């Protein structure tokens, strides 16, 4: 079956609620300056856990959060409101919503289990999405996707497909997660959390540090954006989502799935590997992710891999679980539109198996046109989105 003709898809709005601040401006400043939002956990006693440090967010104000089924939904509502305001969207405009989350309302699971009806306590994924959509005045079609820590990139891919092939004109892709004690206990039990510092691609790396937050992107057809007269921030050229089909918790050490998803996304975008100017990496700082991702980037980009900046922003914003991919794609849009690559903090002693230009130390000017953003999740979920600097039609 030959694919139908596509319409061009552009990004016209961004929203972020992260551990470095309550909006995209805060995120931009933190990425430029290399300011981290990781600090000692205050919301619950971190003493029993592998590391007391994580990326906690400020609570959204009552004007946003009142009535939210859980904090994660409030993060989502805050990010949606900012993105929609930036894109000059109005309530009741029938725009669609593809939401993403890894854990949804896990923080209120106890209440849900005590409720004989099971529903209404806010645990189910659709409840957070429905509440945040209503709070943001969104009345179009909506669904919720959960693809572990690849959720935030996958929603952008799904929203891209809905627009590119003419099902909808506008779609907001937004992802969130809340760092509940239950989620943190589980992530520590999986030994994904470092007991030390987060150091992606460093020889001393020993795990990641988790965070919470939300990221939202307004995607629309180029025709819609022009018709509305809104500024365009970047163009989405293609995407791919796949699964390693390997193991529920153990990584696939050949990197076949993550190389495959990058290659498929570039094919989808109609680009040669030599066109890529930047990679916003998954870069978790775990023992296995970083060399496997590095090898996959080598395999897909060939000689180009050594010529371009490859960064992990997780030491700045933490690993925001289901929201991570959305926040990283927002960072990639900022890289393209504002001409800088953020630094990979914590990288001081390069690992010989991690031999790319990871931009250690401080941000750097950037003049490239094409960037890709990688996200992976437990169970082998992989997603890759290809973006282009907006230079006019």
């Amino acid at each position, binding site marked *: 079956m030959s694919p139908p003709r596509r319409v061009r898809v552009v990004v016209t709005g961004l929203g972020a609620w992260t551990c470095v601040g309550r909006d995209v401006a805060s995120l931009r400043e933190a990425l430029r300056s290399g300011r981290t939002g990781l600090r000692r956990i205050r919301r619950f006693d971190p003493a029993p856990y592998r590391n007391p440090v994580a990326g906690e967010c400020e609570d959204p104000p009552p004007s946003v959060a009142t009535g939210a089924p859980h904090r994660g939904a409030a993060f989502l509502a805050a990010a949606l409101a900012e993105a929609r305001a930036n894109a000059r969207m109005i309530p009741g405009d029938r725009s669609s919503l593809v939401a993403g989350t890894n854990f*949804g309302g896990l923080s209120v699971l106890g209440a849900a289990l005590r409720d004989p009806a099971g529903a209404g306590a806010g645990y189910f994924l659709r409840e957070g999405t429905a509440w945040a959509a209503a709070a943001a005045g969104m*009345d179009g079609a909506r669904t919720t996707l959960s693809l572990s820590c690849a959720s935030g990139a996958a929603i952008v891919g799904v929203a891209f497909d809905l627009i590119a092939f003419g099902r909808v004109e506008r779609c907001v892709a937004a992802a969130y997660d809340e760092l509940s004690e239950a989620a943190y*206990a589980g992530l520590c039990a999986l030994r994904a959390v470092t007991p030390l510092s987060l150091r992606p691609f460093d020889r001393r790396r020993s795990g990641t540090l988790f965070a919470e937050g939300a990221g939202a992107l307004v995607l629309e057809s180029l025709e819609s954006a022009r018709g509305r007269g809104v500024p365009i921030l970047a163009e989405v050229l293609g995407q791919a989502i796949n699964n390693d089909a390997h193991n529920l918790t153990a990584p696939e050490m050949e990197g076949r799935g993550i190389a495959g998803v990058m290659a498929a996304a570039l094919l989808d975008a109609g680009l040669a590997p030599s066109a890529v100017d930047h990679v916003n990496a998954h870069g978790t700082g775990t023992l296995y992710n970083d060399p496997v991702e590095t090898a996959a980037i080598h395999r897909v980009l060939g000689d180009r891999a050594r010529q371009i900046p490859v960064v992990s922003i997780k030491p700045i914003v933490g690993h925001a679980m289901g929201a991570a991919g959305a926040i990283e794609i927002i960072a990639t849009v900022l890289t393209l539109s504002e001409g800088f690559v953020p630094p990979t903090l914590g990288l001081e002693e390069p690992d010989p198996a991690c031999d790319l230009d990871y931009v250690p130390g401080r941000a750097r000017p950037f003049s490239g046109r094409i960037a890709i953003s990688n996200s992976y999740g437990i169970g082998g979920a992989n997603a890759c989105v290809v973006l282009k600097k907006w230079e006019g039609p």
Partner: protein
Amino acid sequence: MTPLSILSAAVLTPFGSDLELLLERLRAGPAPGDAPRRIPDADIDAAAGSAPSYRDRASSMLLGAARLSLAGFGIRPPVPDPERFGLVTGSHRGPLDSYALFHRKIQEAGPRLAPPLLFAHGYPNAPNTLASIALGIRGPNLSFSAGRVSGLSALMHGAIQIEQGRADRVLVAAFETVPAAWDNPAASASGASGFSEIAVAILLAPAGDGPRLLSVAESGGADAALALATAAAEAMLRSGAAGVGSILASLPSPPASAGAVRRFHLESFFGDAGGALGLLGVALAAASIRASRSGSILVASADAGGEAAAAVIG
């Protein structure tokens, strides 16, 4: 949209897996109040095969329906051309039993003894992941949760993977368990627990012989009825079908009159199987059309929150 073939459809229900018998059940009228709500364990085990270690009931049900659907088209896992084979799933309640057990363990033993296996099996997309591993599916992979609309949401996004050339075949599946936490006398006495279990899997491919997915569309809004009507109208418009012979609906309450068109409220027959009912409707519609070789059937789902979707099978 370009019509797609429904190559095979398979179900696991408390009333068995024979779609012809389930169609007879629809024609006979709603189930009595004491109808079974859980799928017999033996049916799930026979379809899914033995688990190497712990496996959540939701994951077993999904895997069982998926294996039956593949077998219905003569595919024995691992699937052929796995990078071009997709798996798109939908579930409202997901693998809740694993998270409930995890929650209980950390309440009892403390967070230092949090069990990683239960935690990993409780991820909302864990059933999808485990099915991907067992069946060797490495192509497009998505896991949706949209209340009662979960199954049809998965159907739409599964169809998109083929329409847009991302996959040659896609297994679309939906599943709902009766979570153990709500399967007790107190829950039943509250009148709130009409939960039932169903798992469904259908295999989609570019159009060929047999029943076809003519269109599928989503809508939404604060007014669920309006959202449903919009989704149904869009699905009908996209399908090119002249009319529908019957309507299979998964709704919080029975649908209003549809004139001469026969309509079936799936909850009245199968209980609250959440997001699986919409895809069950698709499987039943495909079986009906395969038997009669004519007509078209509208399958619709809506939730009280305003999610809505509809599909036309012909």
